[in-house]
């Protein structure tokens, strides 16, 4: 065997196998979907804030349409409330 063949067989093939295994192990989480959260890792996503979908036909549904048509910027309807209670926790 020439030097090139030797290198290909004894370095190229093992490197290829390692690359395939690494892709199988890490590839899916790297390229597909958002990262899984792990405690202690930084959270680099913009904040998100969700409200439940109102029941169809309810008063809240018509409010939702009105609110979405003004891009959620205005239309205050309930009086502002102070926070009264709740709970907090750390992990």
């Amino acid at each position, binding site marked *: 065997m020439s030097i090139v063949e030797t290198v290909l067989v004894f370095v190229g093939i093992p490197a290829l196998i390692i690359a395939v295994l690494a892709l199988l192990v890490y590839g899916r989480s790297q390229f597909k979907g958002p990262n899984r959260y792990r405690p*202690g890792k930084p959270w680099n996503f913009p*904040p998100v804030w969700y409200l439940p*979908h109102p029941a169809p036909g309810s008063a809240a549904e018509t409010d939702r349409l009105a609110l979405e048509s003004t891009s959620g910027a205005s239309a205050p309807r309930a009086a502002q409330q102070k926070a009264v209670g709740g*709970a*907090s926790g*750390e*992990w």
Partner: protein
Amino acid sequence: MSGEVSRRGPALQYGPRADADAVHHPFSPRQLARIDEAMTLSSRESGLTFSVYVGSLDEPHRAAAESLFEILSERTNDPVLVAVSPGQRVLHIVTGTESAARLPNRACALAALGMRASFSGGDLVGGIVTGLRMLADSAGAGR
């Protein structure tokens, strides 16, 4: 007050949307569907409005969560805010005048405990879903 909302970044959304800004979104469509289902069912069962915030909270955390709650209370009836900050590893449940009558602080603390158990295991969505279910169960059926 609407300026307050935009300064903080998140706009209130009705239900998660899987297609919105998918690259920078923390949750997969399936996870969003789970959060959406838990939030909507809890709210319809109990008659309260459960809102979920996931993102960083300014120091002090409690005051930041309460100011978010005040914004929320202008838009909805009987709101309950569940604020989770995965980066800072804190969670806050905030109730108002009406919702506190249905959800005593002890019930909120129990839900927070259940959420902490899931969060410390790395299950963010599971913790949110668990917390919402526990809160809705404690609040009981709505009017």
